C-alpha cells in the first residue's frame, strides 16, 4: 500500500494533534499532583495515554479504512488468499513487546520509590475501622472525625507539614475496642490519597505502610478503597498540608500536651511486666533486651532471620513463640494477643524505637 505524500502529511499532523491534545488531557483527567511521585506517575500516565491513542488510531483507523475500502460489491466477490506474513506478524508482536517492557521498567522504577520510605520521614499512626479514620501522632495527639455547627460530620483531618516525607503506619481495628460482639471484627480497608497517587490496603492483624511528601499546601481527600460495608463510601478523611511552623504550632495546640506515645509505651513496659524479662539498657535478662532492638537483624532459632520492624515487634508481643531469637528460651513468654489493645501495642513499639 503506497501512501500519497499529502495523505502522509495529514496523518503526521493528526498524530501530532493527538499527542499534543492527550498531553493536555492527561493533566485534566488526573487530580492535581501534589507530590513529586505523583508527577512521576502522571508522566507514565501521559505516555500510556499517547501510546494508547496512537495504537488505537492505527488499529481501529486501519479497521475503518479496510471496512470502507473493501466493502462487498457483489455476492460473488473473489478475495485475496493471504494466509500469513511472518515478517509482519513478528513486527506486531515484537514492537508491542518492547513498548510493554519499556513501561514495565519505568513503572517498576517509580513503584520502587513509592515503596521505599525515606529515613527522615515523620511517622503517623493510622487506625481504620468501620467506617472512620483515626490519626495518632508520636506526640500523643489524636485526630478523629468531628461534628460541625450544623451537626454534620466533618472528616478526621491529618495535618502534615509541607515538604517533609510522612510515613503512615496503618492498622485496622474493631468499631469498639472493648466490643465482644463476634460480628464486630476488623476488616480490610484501603488508604487512598488521590492527590499523591498513593494507595495501600490496611490488613487486620498487621501493619502496612505508606509514605508521601506533599509539596503544595492544601486540603486533600482521603478515600477508603477496599469495600468494607454500607458505610464504605462515607469513610472519608482529609490530609491538610501546612508549612512546617504552622504544623508545629498545631501539634503543640489543644490535645497536644498528652503523654507521648513513647512515654505511654514506657509506662506499659513497667505495668504489663515486660520489664521482668526484657531490659531497656542492653543487659540480658530472660528475653532479649529492648535496647538497640529497633531496626536490628534478628536471627532465629531453627534458621531464618528478619529485620526488627513494626510488624516483627507486633508479632513478638502478640504471638511471641512464632519466632524465637537464637540462644533464647522458648515458650516462656505468654502471648499478649487479646491482652493489649492496638493502641497499647503501638505505644510499646514507639517506646522500643526510642531505645537506640
Amino acid at each position, binding site marked *: 500500500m503506497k501512501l500519497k505524500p499529502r495523505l502522509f502529511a495529514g496523518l503526521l499532523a493528526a498524530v501530532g494533534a493527538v499527542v499534543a491534545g492527550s498531553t493536555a488531557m492527561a493533566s485534566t483527567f488526573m487530580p492535581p499532583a501534589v507530590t513529586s511521585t505523583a508527577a512521576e506517575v502522571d508522566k507514565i500516565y501521559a505516555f500510556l495515554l499517547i501510546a494508547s491513542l496512537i495504537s488505537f488510531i492505527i*488499529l481501529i483507523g*486501519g*479497521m475503518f479504512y479496510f471496512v470502507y475500502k473493501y466493502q462487498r460489491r457483489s455476492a460473488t466477490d473473489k*478475495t485475496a488468499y493471504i494466509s500469513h506474513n511472518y515478517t509482519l506478524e513478528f513486527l506486531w508482536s515484537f514492537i*508491542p513487546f518492547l513498548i*510493554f517492557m519499556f513501561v514495565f521498567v519505568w513503572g*517498576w522504577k517509580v513503584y520502587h520509590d513509592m515503596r521505599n520510605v525515606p529515613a527522615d520521614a515523620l511517622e503517623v499512626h493510622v487506625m481504620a475501622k468501620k467506617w472512620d479514620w483515626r490519626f495518632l501522632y508520636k506526640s500523643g495527639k489524636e485526630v478523629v472525625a468531628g461534628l460541625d455547627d450544623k451537626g454534620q460530620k466533618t472528616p478526621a483531618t491529618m495535618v502534615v507539614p509541607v515538604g517533609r516525607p510522612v510515613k503512615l503506619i496503618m492498622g485496622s481495628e474493631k468499631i469498639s475496642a472493648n466490643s465482644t460482639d463476634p460480628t464486630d471484627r476488623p476488616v480490610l480497608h484501603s488508604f487512598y490519597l488521590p492527590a499523591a497517587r498513593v494507595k495501600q490496603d490496611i490488613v487486620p492483624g498487621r501493619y502496612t505502610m505508606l509514605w508521601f511528601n506533599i509539596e503544595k499546601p492544601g486540603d486533600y481527600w482521603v478515600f477508603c478503597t477496599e469495600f*468494607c460495608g454500607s458505610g464504605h463510601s462515607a469513610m472519608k478523611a482529609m490530609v491538610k498540608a501546612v508549612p512546617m511552623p504552622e504544623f508545629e504550632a498545631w501539634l503543640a495546640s489543644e490535645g497536644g500536651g498528652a503523654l507521648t506515645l513513647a512515654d505511654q509505651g514506657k509506662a506499659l513496659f513497667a505495668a504489663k511486666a515486660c520489664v521482668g524479662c526484657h531490659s531497656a539498657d542492653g543487659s540480658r535478662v530472660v528475653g532479649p533486651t529492648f535496647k538497640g532492638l529497633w531496626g536490628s537483624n534478628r536471627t532465629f532459632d531453627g534458621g531464618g532471620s528478619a529485620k526488627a520492624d513494626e510488624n516483627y515487634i507486633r508479632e513478638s508481643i502478640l504471638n511471641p513463640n512464632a519466632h524465637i531469637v537464637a540462644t533464647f528460651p522458648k515458650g516462656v513468654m505468654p502471648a499478649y494477643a487479646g491482652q493489649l489493645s492496638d493502641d497499647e501495642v503501638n505505644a510499646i513499639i514507639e517506646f522500643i524505637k526510642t531505645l537506640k
Partner: protein
Amino acid sequence: MASTGAHGEHNYLNHQKGIWSWLTSLDHKRIGIMYFITVMIFFLVGGLFALAIRTELWSTGETIMTAETYARVMTYHGAVMVFLVIIPGIPAFLGNFFLPMQIGAKDVAFPRLNLMSWYCLLLGAGVALLSLLYGGADTGWTFYTPYSIKHAPAVICMALGVFIAGFSSILTGLNFVVTTHKLRAPGMTMNRIPLFVWALYSTAIIQVLATPVLAITVVLLAAENIFGIGFFDPALGGDPVLFQHFFWFYSHPAVYIMILPAFGVISELITTFARKTIFGYTAIAYSSLAIAAVSFFVWGHHMFVSGQSEFAGVVFSFLTMLVGVPTAIKLFNWIATLYKGSINLASPMLFALGFMFLFTIGGVTGIFLATVATDVHFHDTYFVVAHFHYVMVGGTLMAIMGGIYYWFPKMFGKLCNDAWARISFVFIFVGFNVTFYPQFVLGSLGMPRRYFDYLPEYEHLNKVSTIGSYLIGIGFVVALITIIHGLLKGKPAGPNPWGAKTLEWQTSSPPPHENFHTTPIVTAGPYEYR
C-alpha cells in the same frame, strides 16, 4: 436440498416433543439452547441489578435505595453476571451447540455430563439465590475476607452456590477437552479445526485447571463461616490476604474463561463476513494457548496494594505485560484479515467490528493497570470498573450478541430481521461508550469503586454514565424483540445464509439430530475462501 426450516424436515428441534424431552435431552444442541435461555434469564436479572446501580448513582446521596441495599445489589450484579452469565455464556451455549458441529462430531464426548452441567448451573444459581432469604450477601462478588466472615447464612449460600456452579464449568471444560481430542471427523487435524474450537479448547484447559481452586476456596470460605476455621481470619493467626491469592488464582484465569471464547467467535465472524481466509491462523490459535498458559501466573496484579512484597508486585507486573503480546497479535491479525476482503456489514459483523473497537480500548487500558506505578492510583477506582466492563461487556457480550445473530439461522433455521439487529447494535454500542467512557475519567479523578455516594464534583459524569446505561438497556430490549420476532416470524434461512465455510454450515438448518446427514470428511483448512 435442505432449504426449508422447521417444516416437516427431521431436525433436532422436532426430533422429540414435549418439555420433558428437552429437560432430559442428551443432545448437545438442545442443551446449548437450554443454556441459551437460562443464561439470557440470568442476564436479564443481572442487567436489572446494573440499571438499579446506575439509577442509584444518578445523584449524590440516597437516590432510590439505602446503602445496605446498594451493597447487596452490587454484590448480586457482579456474582450473577460473572458466575451465571459470562462464564457459561459462550462456552456452554454457543460452544455446546457448535464445537461438536465445527469438528464434525455427532455430539460431545460425555452427553450425560453435559446435561448434568446444566443442572449444576441451575442448582448452583438456586442455592446462591437462597441467600436472599437470609437478607442477601453484601460482600461484593469477590467475597474478600475478613469482611465475608460473619457467620452469615447468606454468605454460606453464595459460597456453596458458586461451588456447585463451578462443577458446571468443570464438566463443560472436561467435555470440550476430550471432544476436541477424540471426536474430530476424519481429516480434521488439529491444524484444521476452526479458531472458535481452538479458543474453546484453550478455555476448557483453564476451566479444568483453575475452577477446582475456586471450589476449594469457596469451601474454605463456607467452613470459615460455619466453623471459624481461621485460615483467613487474623484473629486465629490466619491471613486475609491468602484468601485473595486463592481467589484470584482462579478468578484471574476466569477472566480468560470469559474472553477467550469471545476471541474465537470474532475469528469466525471476521472470516465469514470478509469472505476471506483468516490471516495468521497459527498465530491466533497458539496465542489462545499462550494466554491460557500465562493466565495462571498473573493473579497477583489484582493485589499490588494488598500488602504483598515489592518483589512480587514487580514479577506479576512483568508477567501481566506478557499477556498483552498474544492479545495484540490477535487484534492485528483480525484487522489484517479485513485487508482485500469482501466485507459485508451485516449485524454479526457490526458486533465483531464493535468488539474490536471496544476491546482495543479495554486492552490498552489494561496496560495502565499492569504498570505497577499507575495501578497504585487506579486500583479499586472506576478506572478498573470501566476497564473490565470494556473487556467483559464490550468484549464478551458483544461477541455473544454477534454470535447469536450469526448462528441464529443455523440454530433455528430462520433469519432475524437484520435492520432491527443493526438498530440493537447501535444502541448497545453507543450506550456502552456513553456509560463506561466517563468512568475512565471518574477513576482517573479518583472516584473509588463500590461507592454508594460520591463527592459532588463527580456528579456530572455519573449522570452521563447512567443515561448511557439506559441506552444499553434499550439496545438489549430491541435485540430481544428481534430474536423473538425471528423465532416466530423469521424467513427460512437455508443451510448457509452467510456463505460461511466451517462445517456447521454444510448441514441443513436447523441441523438434524445427529448433526450431519453423512459424516463429513475434511480435506482442507476451515477458511478456504479462494
